[in-house]
């Protein structure tokens, strides 16, 4: 398709990005309560996210990466992925937290400036998922870090991850 053709299509059909779904009020309200004391003063209305692999199979990464595609277009909500925990407000952690990664994950958390949030994405990050009971895992991100938001699913859909992150944003702005 020529450039002009593509411009014409965009004018006719609008952008590929879908209209945003409504934010889950219940999650937002409960988070707002929890974060009231600290959040607004600290962060404002945009969040920088650093992804941390805590031993994921790679499935959650597919869906987290999908947030950045043109359909979900994460950045329009003020949510951006950054390349280092040092630049992040949010650590988005996937995987059951393997014992071999506990030190690295702790270091990443320490390197993240306060104030910070930890979001556990996927059944593994929530409580170890199918790998529960293995000698090689600590069993969920919560065993090592203070987790603010759990997003379950194996893997959770991009819509679900986005809903969680937007609830975090909303709660953060309201408090």
């Amino acid at each position, binding site marked *: 398709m020529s450039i002009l053709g593509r411009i014409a299509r965009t004018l006719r059909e609008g952008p590929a990005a879908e209209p945003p779904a409504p934010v889950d009020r219940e999650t937002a309200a409960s988070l707002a309560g929890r974060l009231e004391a600290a959040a607004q003063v600290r962060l404002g209305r945009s969040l920088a996210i650093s992804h941390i692999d805590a*031993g*994921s199979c790679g*499935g959650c*990464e597919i869906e*987290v990466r*999908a947030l950045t595609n043109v359909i979900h277009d994460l950045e329009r909500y003020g949510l951006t992925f950054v*390349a280092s925990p040092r630049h992040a407000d949010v650590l988005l952690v996937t995987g059951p937290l393997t*014992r*071999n990664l506990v030190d690295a994950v702790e270091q990443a958390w320490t390197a993240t400036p306060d104030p910070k949030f930890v979001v556990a994405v996927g059944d593994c990050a929530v409580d170890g998922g199918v790998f529960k009971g293995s000698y*090689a895992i600590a069993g969920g991100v919560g065993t090592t870090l203070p987790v603010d938001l759990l997003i379950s699913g194996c893997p959770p859909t991009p819509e679900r991850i986005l809903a969680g992150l937007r609830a975090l944003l909303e709660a953060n702005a309201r408090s």
Partner: protein
Amino acid sequence: MDASALIRAAVTEPCLPWPRHILAQAEWAQMAEALADEPTPALLALWADTAHVHALLYDEAAGEPLLASTRIEAGLYPALSPNRPLSAWFERMVQDLWGHTAAGGADQRPWLDHGHWPQAHPMALRPDDLRGRSEPPEFLPVADDDLDQIPLGPIHGGIEPASHLRLTGRGESIARLEARLGYTHKGTLALIRGKSPRAAARFAARLSGEATVAHAIAFAQATEAALQAEPPPRAVALRAVMAEMERIAGHLGALGAVGKAAGFCELPARCGYHREALHRAANLAFGHRLMMDCVIPGGVAADVAPNGPDAVLGALADLAKDLLELEHLYERGPLARWLSGIGIVSASQASRFAAGGVTGRAAGRDFDARRFPGYGPYGLLALSVPVLAAGDADARTRLRLAEIGESIRLLRALLDALPPGPVSIPLPADSGEGVGFAESARGDVWHWLRLDHGQIASVFMRDPGWAHWALFEAIAPCARMADLPLIQASFDLASSGVDL
């Protein structure tokens, strides 16, 4: 006698579709020595159980895999790594999980065990209460101490799997790249032991998320071979539909990653759009965006939804329309020039490491597991497998584009003629031993398992990543520092499948 003949001459244990040869330790040692004379058979995998060590080799000349085992004596077995460098990582893995030592092994450092598990040798009959000691990790020495060391990982900047790369070099030149993996080790093999194949399939589907369908197919086939069960034709066709969809999604992901590494945004934007459409179609057709747990031993978990085929064909039509433009975008833009001539894998490296997928085929290794007789419905579809000779990042990228086109054609043919009938059969709780394989977007995956009255007694799952990481290490010294992220993206490396 060459190594293949030595293995074939040994007594066999029943294993389907290929027998497993039992070599006495002296014969195994002779075979290990004979490997020096010939590049074939290539080593695909080496693993163990509590009493034996097993090797899966591929005889390129005969086009046939070979299974060989030997008994562990006094905790030892003769190493294969002196003549098959790829074996070193497997030998270190066997040492860490089972405690068997490769006598004469090229490298005895720990691999998966970073010293954090509650026990050493967790798969052994009697795990050791002593912890392994491997922090801080020991890296290979570099002769010139005037060089800089750059540690990368285990946590990387992008949305990437955990791994550690230790780069040694000066300025733009690289003296050595050493990968340290094992960070994402989840104890999958130990979790599978003692489970029924249906329960264990969930773990096979989570060995590597980008190849969940391929691993589930290989695992199901190994189970079906062991039990001499035949999945219904409709299930075989639906598995192929899922596998081809996963292949397109994987290639789109890898193309996007290459574009992103080069800072060329239009390619990832386009690829991401089509990949999302494909995952949505998969969700409509099979009930899961990545088709995880949709393939089970005995068939598939559920029939395709009535509107599923149309959803898939719709996504494919959109992609097919855009494919030519994607090719132009790649070839006429700056990307093809940047990727030409970097990250070259030679033909001999490709066959020595038995490199699968586009990594091998871009370097002239004409291998695709889909061509094995009796595998899936591919025999009826006149499968075409493009092969290139250059072996560089450009060739790998071109093959991905070409394979997307071929997979679209296969999917249309498959969905046009889905055989009727049931989609799964019940499996007996019997004993047996089998091998299964599948071609994932990254290359061939191999599963071996032994069933004891319906329970899994022993299992191994070989991801193509073993060879790809080793090749990435091997070719890095020829690369410039600045090209490394691009080369890495062109290999499409992932750690979970190798970390087990």
